């Protein structure tokens, strides 16, 4: 899709592998007609639509859904702009010079890069995908994917502001999230298989004389189209959970530490809050001990419904099916260990 000539070339390559008879190139406007039809139908049905969305909890869910989309789209666009810049101006050779050749060493270096990139999780998915495309070891790109939204300065400052009485929460969060990124990266370097990541991720941008700025804009455009739908899907899921999970459930958890850890970990996955906001939500759940709230903060930026949808779009379903459970387990374990280490018995 990066320019018509490349698209034609890739069609030939793909169809010889997968389809016995390559489909003849068609020139139609079916999608455009369908899009116009959807818009026209929705305009005609505007009044029933507005009434349908104006009922009790549906109205709240609609607002939350739009809020997640409006909040996350700028970060997604930022991520695709970085991805486009990587594709256009940073050659795979330059990246190889910066990163250590051994994946075991590249993982901590890529994780540390996450420390300085203040983006939320939506921004890091397209960047990590592009890093893999530019030949960075997958384990290192995944460590960056996990570290960037969790331990950047904005998130750590937000955590400190949200927990003024418990400054140790910042250190515990940093420790738990960094451990999650490193352990997942090393596990992937040791046990990960190349075929789990969809093949087209690794195809470098074409070198067919397309000017750099055109490679840049086309990569941005292409990545947004690729990821945007999945972002919307994650937003729908998170909005539904936001309305359906009564917070009263949480009040009963105060005395049950293990249950509280499990519930808060699942809640972090389902609510899909922005990593810059989750500390304030965790701080508001004051009836719970610190440890389950730390688990919420470490799991949330690493794996949630919005991220799973984005990762399935970027790296393929086979990847998301393996990566999400792995990250979930490692993040819960890292958070519990970091909590026991930092809070001691007081957590």
């Amino acid at each position: 899709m990066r320019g018509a000539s490349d698209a034609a070339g890739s069609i030939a390559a793909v169809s010889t592998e997968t389809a016995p008879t390559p489909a003849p190139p068609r020139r139609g406007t079916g999608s455009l007609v369908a899009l116009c039809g959807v818009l026209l139908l929705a305009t005609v049905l505007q009044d029933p639509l507005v009434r349908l969305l104006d009922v009790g909890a549906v109205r709240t869910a609609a607002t939350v859904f739009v809020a997640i989309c409006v909040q996350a789209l700028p970060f997604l666009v930022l991520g695709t702009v970085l991805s486009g810049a990587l594709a256009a101006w940073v050659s795979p050779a330059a990246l190889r010079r910066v990163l250590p050749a051994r994946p075991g060493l590249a993982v901590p270096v890529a994780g540390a890069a996450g420390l300085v990139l203040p983006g939320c999780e939506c921004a890091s998915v397209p960047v990590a995908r592009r890093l893999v495309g530019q030949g960075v070891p997958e384990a290192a790109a995944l460590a960056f994917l996990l570290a960037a939204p969790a331990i950047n300065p904005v998130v750590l400052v937000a955590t400190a502001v949200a927990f003024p009485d418990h400054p140790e929460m910042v250190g515990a969060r940093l420790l738990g999230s960094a451990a999650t990124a490193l352990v997942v990266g090393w596990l992937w370097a040791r046990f990960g298989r190349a075929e789990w990541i969809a093949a087209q991720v690794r195809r470098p941008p074409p070198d067919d004389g397309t000017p750099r700025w055109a490679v840049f804009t086309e990569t941005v455009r292409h990545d947004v189209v690729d990821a945007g739908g999945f972002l919307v899907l994650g937003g729908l899921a998170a909005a539904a959970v936001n309305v359906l999970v009564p917070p009263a459930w949480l009040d009963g958890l105060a005395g049950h530490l293990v249950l509280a850890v499990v519930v808060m970990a699942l809640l972090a996955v389902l609510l899909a809050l922005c990593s810059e906001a989750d500390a304030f939500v965790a701080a508001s759940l004051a009836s719970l001990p610190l440890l389950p709230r730390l688990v919420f903060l470490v799991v949330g930026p690493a794996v949630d419904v919005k991220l799973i949808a984005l990762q399935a779009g970027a790296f393929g379903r086979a990847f998301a099916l393996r990566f999400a459970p792995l990250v979930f387990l490692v993040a819960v374990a890292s958070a519990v260990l970091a909590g026991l280490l930092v809070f001691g018995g007081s957590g």
Partner: protein
Amino acid sequence: MRRDAQHVLLVLVGGVLVKIVLDGSYLRYVRAWSAAPVLAAGVVLITVALIALARDLRRPTAPPSGEDDHDHDHGPDARAGPAAWLMVLPVLALLLVVPPALGSAALRDTGARTAPAAAAPADEPLPPGDAPPLGLLDVVSRTAADPHGTITERDVTVTGFLVPAARTPPPGATGLDVARLVISCCAADASAVRLHLADPADLLAGVAPGGAEGDRWVAIRGRVVAGTGTPADGHVPTLSVIGWSPVAAPVPVYEY
């Protein structure tokens, strides 16, 4: 989804992002600082879509749209194809429906989380003047820091919407709360802050909270009852009402 339809969709997505910033409705969903990022994202989307459209049009020999029908660039299972259609949803929601800001209905439906009490500096002196306007979160933070502090010695003015008290109100308070939603990033993380209302002069007799027709926004002049807003009452201080008036919903509608 074909390439030409993708261009149109991206222009639409970018267009609604620009639109909600220009008409101010973005404040229903995100904080004020998001104006610049949302606007920039909209402009970027429109620009890259128009550039791609122009480049496609200048290359008439190779069919620009037909090739991507099954999104071959994304491997044989064509995952990105159908999912891209979902981007129509926020476009339709923002063009046709424009969901309202969260309000008292959200408190009923979701029982929004209670805001953290100590998120704002509580030891600054109160603003000068007669009955200075304070945010509800500010009042709650100050009483949490010192339930007998200067906040209980002066009149203040607060703005919020009326809701029924969530739990049994303390002695002396009516069953009415004044509430406001606090967001830290977007409306998905909204939390409620409340003050119980005590009404010794019977000023609120017969006043009902807003219902299906919308929130009932009020500005209330009053004084915080000393000793309230502690962990014992769940950090919900009691405000003794001295006067009140109906007001329009403030802009921005949320506290930060």
